[in-house]
């Protein structure tokens, strides 16, 4: 039974596609464990799609110039693009079967949620019982990794400048607050201090040092007008 879930705000930003990659991976992976959150995401997506595509009043009228561009684009599709897309699909070289979606650490192999399919591009690093595999998300604001703690291992007391997200993927661990199970999604802010311990060993997905980064949508970071629109 999963006890810790992303909140409604995060789920709704995720459904809109407004979260950074590191956090999108975490929510999507949680939803692979958690049918309840998956269902909420599906409902949010349904509502968003109806709002975007089936209700006229939310759509700003396009300018004359945009009309013209859309007309041109459609003509281009009909006269050219659609046929070349079909040719492209037929002649596309056979890509080799994609690498399997698992990691091996200290002789143990773990199956990862599907969302990690393209994310594991580097190797493990670490000493003693704690190993880390860094994900290359290209986000300077956040560091995303897989974290493995071997049986009877612990992470020394630590605090962090920003928030810290931990999604437990396999095994178990406990801290001074609770014991966690695979699928549990814990977002701690900088005021928490904790030192997770594990008896059987565990694999987590973590994101650290991301002050305010998670809970703001991407488009708000990119576009100040975004605040008015969402």
């Amino acid at each position, binding site marked *: 039974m999963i006890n810790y879930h992303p909140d409604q705000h995060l789920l709704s930003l995720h459904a809109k596609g407004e979260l950074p990659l590191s956090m999108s991976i975490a929510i999507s992976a949680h939803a692979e464990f958690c049918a309840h959150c998956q269902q909420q995401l599906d409902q949010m997506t349904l509502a968003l799609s109806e709002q975007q595509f089936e209700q006229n009043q939310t759509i700003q009228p*396009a300018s004359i110039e945009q009309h013209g561009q859309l007309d041109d684009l459609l003509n281009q*599709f009909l006269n050219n*693009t659609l046929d070349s897309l079909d040719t492209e699909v037929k002649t596309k070289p056979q890509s080799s079967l994609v690498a399997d979606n698992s990691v091996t650490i200290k002789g143990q192999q773990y199956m990862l949620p599907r969302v990690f399919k393209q994310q594991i591009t580097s190797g493990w690093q670490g000493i003693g019982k704690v190993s880390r595999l860094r994900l290359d998300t290209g986000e300077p604001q956040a560091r995303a990794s897989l974290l493995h703690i071997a049986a009877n291992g612990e992470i020394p007391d630590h605090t962090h400048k920003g928030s810290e997200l931990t999604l437990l993927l396999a095994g178990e661990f406990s801290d001074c607050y609770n014991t966690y199970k695979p699928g549990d999604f814990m977002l701690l802010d900088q005021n928490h201090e904790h030192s997770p311990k594990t008896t059987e060993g565990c694999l987590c997905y973590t994101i650290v040092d991301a002050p305010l980064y998670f809970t703001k949508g991407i488009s708000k970071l990119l576009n100040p007008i975004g605040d008015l629109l969402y």
Partner: protein
Amino acid sequence: MLHRDLLDMSEKMENIQSQSSQTRYDKGNLSLRSSNQRSGAMNSDEPNPLTDELAQLMMLVANNRCKTSFAKLFSHFAPKINSFGVQRLSQQGLAMDLVQETMSRVWTKAHLYNADKAAVSTWVFTIMRNQCFDMLRKVQHNREDAFGDDIWPLFESDDAENNDDDFLLSASLLQHVEELPPLQRQVVQGIYMQELTQQELADKLNIPIGTVKSRLRLGLEKLKSFMEKHYD
């Protein structure tokens, strides 16, 4: 007005193309864009003419490669995708790229659309959001990657529970899959881990679909016996 123009254009298309009879089905009373009175977002049990009509157009695109139907889908979706893109991507040039990329995928992936699983609007929304996500990564981080479809898989919106079971089951099956003979392993991994259809896998491996089926059957029987041995 735009709608009118695009309709005229799609009618023109109808004249220059000699399509099969099915594509002539609805010119007279096309009801696209007229359903804004329907407010209850979750009431998808009620028959909805717009939903049905869009699904019909998708079918024609998927089965007949019908360009007239594509033009109608374009006239419904493109201005709305454009407005989403303007909000999200801020630059008009990029919004038009979003329209182009999204509508290209509607065409190339039409055969994967399943009306039983999602409304066309939801399916197109998913394609658009995923595409927009990848475009934003490019703008923000200068990354040419395509992770949107990994984060929000396109074609299984309403069977979350099954996915969940599949994933948890795969975790325990994984080591046994590794023990299969290579050809069977390839097929089992393709179907269950990469979630390809049997046809897609047959195309990819360049083998007949019958061979995919028989390798899959052999592989699954072997896995079953591994599991039975293990848990007896």
